[in-house]
Structure formats: structure tokens, C-alpha cells
């Protein structure tokens, strides 16, 4: 299967007054056509930066290296205008905060129309029917398109966001924490909606979340991210049933069970690493229970190519160290 | 980029729309090539609005009266020399006791509306002002109707005015001041101070009021071609406000303006101006609270203060030579009533100190301020109105008095507050500046009220000179009064201001300062006789040409500004 999005060796730094933030470190990553890929990591691990770097909407004070190619075309250095045409038309984006991601003062209809106008030359009627169709798809009564965003509930707004991202049938959808700000009962519906819409339109999707459990339901493949690095990757079943990296293991173990009897679950103690610091060894070492001697001296392997886990442990178990 | 283009066009259209909306009624566009227009200005004053120019509505200051005098004639009028020529009266004589004045009126004079002028109008005017306007600000301050007992018309062109008492300056202060108003217009007017219809400006004068604009503070008169002394030398007389007279003169915006000496110095040869100067009859003086302040009540203290003030220095610092130092006798040196043989107070600080020491103020405190017998420091409040000259004078007086150990606190206020406080006796010292009437009757007789100094000897002289019809005898009395003033120092005249005027040599020349002033003593270059007997040097209307060029210039500038703005925006947008 041909990969739709291919990211290789992506490194992103931001220079600010406080110093250089090392946000993404040598990230290798790919999404195939029609695939739903999950990207899991705790807050501050750089997952949103990855999404925005792919979309090229965080170029302010950004330094980056590495390759990003979309349908075989290199896009990490193309012209702004061309990139703009790509966004929205071929890559859709569902943002984290559905509450404010729509301009609160502009009618839904106009916001849909301007998206269409930015990429195509449709007539008014065509735009109207397209808008109607996509709103229907996410279960919003099309007659409400003349309302402003603040007249909708949070769940409805997130639906509208999904409709808006899917409007021009992009080949790839990037959903950044699509459910975080929503109530529990709504979260599930949105996840299911996303899954249905993606399947219906045969689109690929990248779902970003800190919540392994909610997202894993719809993912084909999962990348685990920690401190700007992909630390483990695999199919959903591999990750859920047979995690190798200690972080993934802990992440899975820290999930709260819904048990009648009291049980104890262990969380991940310690603090997330700072992006300002340049680590010479494994970033997770400070919080890891299974630190061995090699961890203190040698960097673990990068999670690239055939390497599915960035841990000495993983090497020992799965591949054969040279 | 479209956004900003749109906003620029939006802006420009808004600008135009707002302009169109707010443009006041468009002026007429008559042919102007033949017109002789003369534009004048009262100089750089905060206002150029002197009220509606009717005899009872103008603002009661000198310029207001002058604006009215263009439309209205008095019985007589002063010439350059100060002698009187007949306007509405061709000749006049008085009875031997000076109580009865007979005026023989000019025949064939018509009002601007064509009605004939008769003696009835004169009688009506005198009675009307005496009756209706005596208590109004204008009536009381400009028209001295109190001396008039009765007015009678013996025939259509003879009027006899009977006085209550002998009044030497009757011609100068009454006959040459009161504008004669048309009976047929005013007889039904109940409240003259609110009557400002077009008819209210109808008189017999050399000019007809065409427009008075209180917002633009401008006046426009057209010549009265049938004026009985002859057709005016100009067709249109315009008064405008200018924020800087010199600039306006240089650009030709105005043809003539009253100036200060500083402003005169800003003119040069190339401006082609005729500059004249004249006596200002304007005094700056230091007033004492003689009745209530026990220290200042002492003549010695006042004399010491006079010795400590260098009047010519004050003049040179405040007016920069545009005036003359104060005369202890109060009458300005250029007046024909001036008496040079009075006590002089040459600047002498030692003498001043000595006098104060002798008066018992020899002790001083640590600040060098003298103490009185009870040990209180000699500190006075100096009240002054906050106009620039008064403030400057006050600062200088403060400096000078400090040198002789008198402390001064400055207390500024506006003219009216100062007047109010002085009237209430609520002050120590005050700087006053005002016009001095040219006739001693008004100049000196008011001393008890204007200085608070009450001297029976002086008052007796004052009474006497007012009813003395013999000029020489009168002069002697006035000289004596000046001696008394100089000896007692009821007030210290610090300096007298001169007046200056510049007019373009290409328009009207022949301006002069009337000796003794116009309208009872207004020192002005605008004696209306100039516009009858003066010379017109231009042959076409210069004002209009200049202005047109000006506006053509402005179009270019506006365009370039707009283009620059557009370019700026385009550059801004092009960058990204």
C-alpha cells in the first residue's frame, strides 16, 4: 500500500526568549491510504506540533529539518500559496478546542462558503448543496446553517468542525484531540461519527490524543510519542496487547478500570521532561522502573524503519543488537 | 489587498460625503474682476467677533463700535488732527453757557433703504437710547446720555440738545459717538439688545452690512455708492479673523491689520507694506487697595514702590519698545493734556529702600522680607488677569518688589474675576490694563472709583474742569490734577502701549491714527474717513486671485498626500 503521508527525520525547534524548545526529535512517521492512525502522548510531548508542522501553520520562530511528503510530493519546503491550497482541500484538520475553533461572530454558512471559495470555483447553489450535504452527514439540521457558532452546544460544534474539515473530501484528516473538551457521553458519539465519516469517504486519518483508551477503538495503527520522540509503534492489537516500551506499558496500566471491587492502579510518577533540555540519554529514564546500566550511557535506538520501539529493552527482546 | 483598496476608497468617499454634508450654504459666485475688495483684520486676537453691528447690539469694546460706525453715522466725526468734521450735522454751535447745542443737519441724506434722514431721527435716537438702552451694557458704557436733558427738533433739519450741566467734552464724547438710528425701523423695537434683523444694520454710513457671520467671525460690507461725503474708494470691505496676522498679510489673505511692534518687525521690504503707528491710549497700571490696606494706604509706601519699579525696563521687556514708560501724572505723554512738570519717580532702589526704612519697615525676616510694626511680613497678593502682558508685568513687579523686601504672591484670574475682587475690595495689589479715554473728563474724573483714592482737592478740580469751556483754562486745571496724582501716587501707571498697523501698498493707503481716537477715544486706524478720502492703489481684486491660487495648490497637495498614502498601503501589502 502506498503511503499517503510520509514523515522522515522531522526535527522541530522553537527559539523563544526562554531558550530553544526541542519539541520534535527525529520523528519518522507514515500514514497509508485509508488508514486510521493514532498518535498518543501526554501533554507537552509534541504531538500537536507534529500536526501543525505537517500543515505548516506554525512557521513563526520555527526551525525544522527532515522531510515531509504527501502523496509522494515533498511538502516541507514548498511555497506558502501551494501549501495553503493543500490545506483544507487535501488535508483536513479537526482541532482540539471545538468551542472556539469557529469564528463566533460569523454564520456557519459563510464559514463553510469561504472554505469552499478558498479552493474551488463553485456557484452559490453548488456551495449551498455541498454545505447542506456535509452538515447532514454529521447530523446537524442544515436549516441551522444561518446561525452563529455560539448558538450551538459543544458537541454540535465539534460535529460542525468535522463537517467543515470533510467539506472538500480531503485525502487525509488530522484530528487533534477531537474529544478532549467534551462531556463523556458526547465523546463516544464524536469518535463514532469520525470513524463513520472516514470510512464513508475512504479517507485516511491521523487521530491525536493523550487518551490511549478512547482513541484506540478506531485506530488501525498507533504511534506512542514521548518527549518529542516516537517511542513505540505498532498495530492497535500489538500496542494494546503486547506493549514493549516501559512508557507504553505504564500508559496502558494506568488506565482506570471500572470495577466493583477496589483495586489499585499505578500511574506514571515523576514529571514530564522539559522541552528546554537536550537529553543525551533516554528521556523516559527518570520515570522508568526498568532502568538498566546501558540506559545511563547509551541513547536507545530511534524508532525508524523496522525499529518498532525506541528502547534498549525492546532491542533486547525483539531485534538483534549488532 | 482588496480590503485596503476598498477602505481607501471608502475613506475618500466618506471624506467627500461628510464635506458635502457639512458645507454651509455656498457663497454666491458673482463676477469679481472689477471689484475693489479690501480685507482687513483686527489682528491676532482670540476673537474677531464683535457682535452684530447695530448701535445697540455690538459687543461693547472698541472694535465693536468701529464695526458699527461703518453703517451708522454720528452727528460729527473726528478727522486725523482730532478736529471734528460734520457728518450728519453740517454745522453746530453752542450757547454761551455751553448748555444748549444746536446742530444744523445735512439735507438730502437717505438711509440705506432709501428713506430720507430728518431731525426726527436724531431726536428719536437720543430719546430711544436714553429711554431704552441706558441700562444696557452698551448704552451705559458708550453713550453718555446722562448729560442730555432734552432733545428737540426745531425744524426738519435743526436739532437742539439741552444739557443737564456744562460738559466740556460734549462734542468729543457725545455728539461724535452716538450713532443716529432710523426712527422708522427702531420705533417699534421693544428690546433693542435682541434685535438683529437685517434692518437693524440700516444706517446712513458709507458701508452697508451685507453679512455678519458669528461662526466664521467675519463681516462683509458693500459700499454705499450714494454716501453723502462721496463714494467710498472700495466696493467691498471685509473683516476676517486671522490666527496670525503677519502670515495672513504676507500671503495676501488680508490687506491690512493692526499689529504689535513684534509683528511689525516680522515684515520686511518685500512685503510692500505701509506701516503706521499711533498712540494706544492704553495703560498698564498697578492698582492699590488704598481704602482697606493700612500699609498701602501710606503714600510713602506707594512712592517707595514707584521708585523701586523701573517702568521703562518693564516696557522694554513686555512690549519690546512698542510702548512708553508710565508717567506719574497718569496722562500719557502723547496726549495734548499731558503735563511734564510733575514729580518724577526715576528708578532708584536705594531711595526706595531708604523710604521704607524711614516709614518703619526696617526689620526684615530671614527671607529678606520687611516686617511691619507688629512683626508681620510685608507680603501682598498681586491680582492680575491672566492675559500674557499682565502676567509678564506681574512677574516683573514681583521681581522688582522683592528687591526692596516686599513679598508678592501672584494671583491670576480672568478680567472679570479680577474686577469682581477689586470691586469687593478683596485684594492688595492688582495689575490693570485698559483704555484711557482721550478726554480728561473721563480719564481722570473716575479716579475715586478706578483707584480707590479719594481726595477732595482733586475732586474739586475735576468738577471744575469738566464744566470749563475755555480750553486753556481747562488745560491748567488738568495740569494741576496731574500734579496731585503724581504727588500722591494713587496708582502707578507702568506703561502705555502704542498701536501699529500695516497695510498693503497695493490696496488702500492713507491710513492714520486719529488724534484723540474715534468714538470717544478708540485708538484705531479704522477711521471710516480713510475709505472716503484715502487712495486705492490696486486695479483688480487681488484677494480673489491669491485665494484661487491657494486652493489650486491645495488640490495638488491633497492629491499627493492621497497618493503617498495609497503607496504606503500598497508597499505594506506587497511585502507579504
Amino acid at each position: 500500500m502506498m503511503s499517503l503521508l510520509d514523515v522522515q527525520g522531522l526535527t522541530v525547534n522553537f527559539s523563544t526568549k526562554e531558550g530553544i524548545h526541542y519539541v520534535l526529535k527525529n520523528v519518522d512517521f507514515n500514514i497509508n491510504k485509508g488508514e486510521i492512525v493514532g498518535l498518543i502522548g501526554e501533554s507537552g510531548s509534541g504531538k500537536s506540533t507534529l500536526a501543525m508542522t505537517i500543515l505548516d501553520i506554525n512557521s513563526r520562530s520555527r526551525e525544522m529539518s527532515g522531510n515531509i511528503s504527501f502523496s509522494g510530493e515533498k511538502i516541507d519546503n514548498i511555497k506558502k500559496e501551494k501549501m495553503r491550497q493543500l490545506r483544507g482541500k487535501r488535508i483536513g484538520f479537526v482541532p482540539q478546542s471545538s468551542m472556539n475553533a469557529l469564528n463566533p461572530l460569523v454564520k456557519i454558512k459563510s464559514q463553510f462558503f469561504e472554505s469552499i471559495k478558498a479552493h474551488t470555483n463553485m456557484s452559490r447553489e453548488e456551495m449551498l448543496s455541498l454545505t447542506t450535504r456535509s452538515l447532514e452527514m454529521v447530523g446537524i439540521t442544515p436549516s441551522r446553517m444561518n446561525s452563529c457558532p455560539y448558538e450551538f452546544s459543544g458537541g454540535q460544534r465539534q460535529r460542525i468542525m468535522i463537517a467543515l474539515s470533510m467539506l472538500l473530501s480531503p485525502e487525509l484528516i488530522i484530528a487533534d484531540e477531537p474529544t478532549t473538551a467534551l462531556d463523556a457521553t458526547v465523546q463516544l458519539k464524536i469518535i463514532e461519527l469520525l470513524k463513520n465519516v472516514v470510512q464513508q469517504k475512504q479517507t485516511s486519518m491521523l487521530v491525536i490524543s493523550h487518551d490511549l483508551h478512547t482513541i484506540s477503538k478506531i485506530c488501525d495503527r498507533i504511534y506512542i510519542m514521548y518527549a518529542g520522540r516516537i517511542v513505540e509503534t505498532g498495530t492497535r492489537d500489538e500496542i494494546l496487547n503486547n506493549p514493549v516500551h516501559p512508557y507504553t506499558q505504564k500508559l496502558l496500566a494506568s488506565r482506570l478500570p471500572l470495577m466493583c471491587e477496589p483495586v489499585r492502579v499505578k500511574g506514571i510518577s515523576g514529571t514530564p521532561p522539559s522541552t528546554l533540555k537536550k537529553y543525551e540519554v533516554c528521556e523516559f529514564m527518570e520515570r522508568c522502573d526498568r532502568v538498566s546500566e546501558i540506559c545511563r550511557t547509551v541513547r536507545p535506538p530511534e524508532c525508524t524503519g523496522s525499529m518498532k520501539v525506541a528502547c534498549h529493552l525492546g532491542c533486547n527482546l525483539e531485534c538483534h543488537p549488532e | 489587498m482588496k480590503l485596503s483598496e476598498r477602505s481607501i476608497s471608502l475613506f475618500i468617499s466618506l471624506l467627500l460625503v461628510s464635506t458635502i454634508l457639512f458645507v454651509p450654504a455656498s457663497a454666491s459666485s458673482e463676477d469679481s474682476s472689477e471689484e475693489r475688495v479690501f480685507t482687513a483684520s483686527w489682528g491676532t486676537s482670540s476673537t474677531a467677533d464683535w457682535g452684530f453691528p447695530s448701535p445697540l447690539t455690538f459687543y461693547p469694546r472698541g472694535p465693536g463700535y468701529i464695526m458699527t460706525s461703518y453703517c451708522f453715522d454720528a452727528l460729527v466725526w473726528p478727522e486725523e488732527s482730532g478736529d471734528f468734521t460734520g457728518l450728519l450735522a453740517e454745522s453746530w454751535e453752542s450757547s454761551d453757557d455751553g448748555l444748549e447745542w444746536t446742530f444744523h443737519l445735512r439735507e438730502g441724506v437717505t438711509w440705506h433703504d432709501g428713506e430720507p434722514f430728518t431731525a426726527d431721527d436724531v431726536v428719536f435716537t437720543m430719546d430711544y437710547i436714553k429711554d431704552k438702552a441706558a441700562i444696557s451694557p452698551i448704552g451705559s458704557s458708550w453713550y453718555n446720555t446722562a448729560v442730555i436733558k432734552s432733545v428737540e427738533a426745531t425744524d426738519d433739519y435743526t436739532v437742539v440738545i439741552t444739557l443737564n450741566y456744562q460738559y466740556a467734552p460734549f462734542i468729543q464724547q457725545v455728539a461724535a459717538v452716538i450713532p443716529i438710528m432710523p426712527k422708522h425701523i427702531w420705533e417699534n423695537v421693544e428690546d433693542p439688545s435682541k434685535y438683529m434683523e437685517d434692518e437693524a444694520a440700516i444706517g446712513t454710513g458709507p458701508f452697508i452690512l451685507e453679512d455678519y457671520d458669528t461662526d466664521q467671525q467675519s463681516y462683509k460690507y458693500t459700499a454705499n455708492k450714494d454716501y453723502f461725503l462721496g463714494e467710498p474708494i472700495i466696493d467691498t470691505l471685509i473683516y476676517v479673523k486671522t490666527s496670525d496676522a503677519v502670515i495672513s498679510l504676507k500671503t495676501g489673505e488680508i490687506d491690512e491689520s493692526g499689529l504689535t511692534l513684534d509683528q511689525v518687525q516680522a515684515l520686511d521690504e518685500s512685503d510692500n507694506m505701509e506701516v503706521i503707528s499711533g498712540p494706544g491710549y492704553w495703560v498698564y497700571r498697578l492698582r492699590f487697595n488704598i481704602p482697606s490696606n493700612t500699609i498701602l494706604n501710606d503714600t510713602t509706601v506707594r512712592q517707595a514702590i514707584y521708585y523701586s519699579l523701573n517702568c521703562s525696563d518693564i516696557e522694554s521687556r513686555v512690549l519690546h519698545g512698542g510702548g512708553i514708560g508710565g508717567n506719574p501724572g497718569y496722562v500719557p505723554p502723547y496726549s495734548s493734556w499731558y503735563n511734564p512738570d510733575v514729580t518724577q519717580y526715576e528708578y532708584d532702589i536705594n531711595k526706595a529702600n531708604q523710604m521704607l526704612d524711614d516709614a518703619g519697615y526696617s526689620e526684615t525676616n530671614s527671607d529678606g522680607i520687611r516686617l511691619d510694626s507688629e512683626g508681620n511680613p510685608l507680603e501682598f497678593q498681586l491680582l492680575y488677569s491672566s492675559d500674557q502682558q499682565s502676567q509678564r508685568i506681574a512677574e516683573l513687579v514681583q521681581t522688582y518688589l522683592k528687591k526692596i523686601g516686599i513679598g508678592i504672591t501672584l494671583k491670576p484670574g480672568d478680567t472679570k474675576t479680577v474686577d469682581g475682587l477689586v470691586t469687593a475690595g478683596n485684594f492688595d495689589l492688582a495689575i490693570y490694563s485698559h483704555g484711557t479715554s482721550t478726554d480728561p473728563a473721563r480719564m481722570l474724573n473716575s479716579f475715586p472709583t478706578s483707584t480707590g483714592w479719594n481726595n477732595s482737592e482733586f475732586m474739586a478740580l475735576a468738577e471744575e474742569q469738566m464744566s470749563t469751556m475755555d480750553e486753556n483754562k481747562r488745560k491748567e486745571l488738568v495740569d494741576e490734577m496731574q500734579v496731585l496724582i503724581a504727588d500722591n501716587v494713587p496708582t502707578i501707571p507702568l506703561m502705555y502701549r502704542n498701536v501699529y498697523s500695516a497695510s498693503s501698498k497695493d490696496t488702500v493707503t492713507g491710513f492714520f491714527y486719529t488724534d484723540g481716537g474715534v468714538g470717544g477715544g478708540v485708538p484705531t486706524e479704522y477711521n471710516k474717513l480713510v475709505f472716503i478720502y484715502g487712495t486705492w492703489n490696486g486695479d483688480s481684486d487681488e484677494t480673489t486671485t491669491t485665494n484661487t491660487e491657494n486652493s489650486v495648490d491645495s488640490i495638488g497637495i491633497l492629491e499627493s498626500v492621497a497618493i503617498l498614502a495609497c503607496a504606503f498601503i500598497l508597499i505594506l501589502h506587497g511585502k507579504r
Partner: protein
Amino acid sequence: MDRKRSGHIISRGLEYAITFFLILAINFFLPRVMPGGPLLSITGSQSSDLPVVIDEETKYKLMEYYHLNDPLHIQFIHYISDALHLDFGYSIFYNVPVVDILVGRLPWTILLMGTALVFSTIFGIIIGLESAWKRGEKLDHALLVIMPFFRSIPAFFLGAIMIFVFGYKTGWFPTSGSMTPYMNYAGFIDHALDIISHLALPMLCLAAFEMPGTYLLVRNICVQQLGKPYVLMAEARGLKERTIKKHVLINSIVPVINQIAAMLGFMVAGTVFIETVFSYPGMGMLVYNSFIERDYPVLQGAFIFMSLVVLACNYVADIACSYIDGRTGQE
């Protein structure tokens, strides 16, 4: 929602009416608590220039005429009813009804303030938005240095400099008045140009006085808005820069309008200085001249008029905002 909006408009209108009423009350009570008493503000102080001595009888008659002998609340009712009939008394200086003078001056001030406001707002918004969009870049830094400098120049000083440069040195623009009196215009355009050329300097001066404030305001609000998720989303949707700016502008316009309306009182102060410096015959110069002459009725009338203009503008801004932002009045 429309009912809500009209409710909001009406309730705000009531609030403004109360505000205006209170301003009238201030005007009523001010002369009554100040030294000199209310009669002073009607007749002016006694001056030696105008030696009319008001004796006790006249004084009583005057007090009677102006209802000053009545109890305070009756006086107040008289005052309010007079004010509502636009009767602010007679000018001491001009000796005509105050309202006549004010009505003559108002259009010029509105022209001056209006054009300066439009000019400064439009340019302030354009530059502010541009600066916010390119925040951190050279243009932004340059503007952030230049604008505060302009903001620091006192209006009257700027006016003096402009007169010097554009009036004295170059002679490009007339430096006083609002039009050339009694000029024989070739036509309407000529007339308009004359007015514009008189307007240019004071207007630019007032605009320069206003614009830095607007610029900084717009820039700050836009920078805030640019950090909002909807901007990110707009970018992610691949909208054109212009469209995104439009979004930012729509969201910034409400606070900007509100702030500008709130700053109008400040602008009035600028108008007083600038009209005085340029002898522009508007309300500002009238206020200054009336102050110099202690023409209390005109001073107070002008104050009421200016307050009315400011209040009206605020109200219009309120209504405009409630149309732009349907949420107004819901919080």
C-alpha cells in the same frame, strides 16, 4: 434573539438617558456650589469694562426671572425643562441665545472630529492589523517605536509644528479658520476644496493625536485574536490571508469600536487644543474663548452639547456592536 437585541438597545438607551440627565444635573449644581453663586454664571462677574451696577432690586428681579428664589428642586425642574427645550440661556459675551452659537459651531467640530476619527480609525486599523499580523517582524518593531512617539507629542505642540512647517515654511495650507470668508467660489468643488484645505492641517493633527492609540489598541486586540483557535483553524482550512484577516477584524471590531467610543471624551480634549491652535471655529475654540471670557452659559451649554455628542456616539457604537456581535447583552 432580535427581541433580546431590541431589549438591549432600549435598556442601553435608558442608561444613556440617565447619564445625560446626570450630566445636566452636574451642570445645574456646579454653579450653585461654586463661589459666586448661580447669578454669577448668568450675568458674568461685574466688570469695570461694563460698568452696569446691578443694584439689589435688579438683582432680585434677575433672581426672580431665573427662578433663583424658588426652592432648589423647582429650580431644577425649570432647568431641565429649559434644557429639554434647548434653552441654555443667553451668552454673556455674544448676547444671543447659547443654543444659536452652539448650533453654528457644531457642524465644524463634527466635520473635524468626524474626518479625523474616520481617518485615524481606518489607518489605525489597517496598520494595527498589519502590525499584529507581522508581529515580531521589522515593520512591527518600527511601528511600535514610531507610534508611541507620536502618542507622546502633545496635540498643541504638534499643531504648532504643523503650522510652522506647512503654514509658514511651505505655505501649502491655510493655518486658520475653516474656510476663506467671502471668497468668490468658482463652484461647489472649489468651495469644497477650500474647506478641505482648511480642514487638512487640524484634521491631520487630530488624527495623528488619535491614531497611535487606535493603532496600539487594534494591534493588541488583533494579536490576542490571532492566538485564538479559530485563526489556527482558518489557517488549517487553507483560507487566504485576506479572509483570515477579515475574521480577525470582525472579532476585533467590537472591542475596538467600544474603546474608540470610550476614548471620544479624550478626543474632545484634543479638539479643544487643536481648534484653539488652528483657530478652527468649532466647539473646541468656542469653549476656550468662552473660558477666557468667562462666558459661563456658553461654557456649560457647550459642555452639554459635547457630552451629548459623546453619549450619542457611544450609543451608536453600542447599537452597531450589538448588530455585529449577536451575543451582546446575553452575558
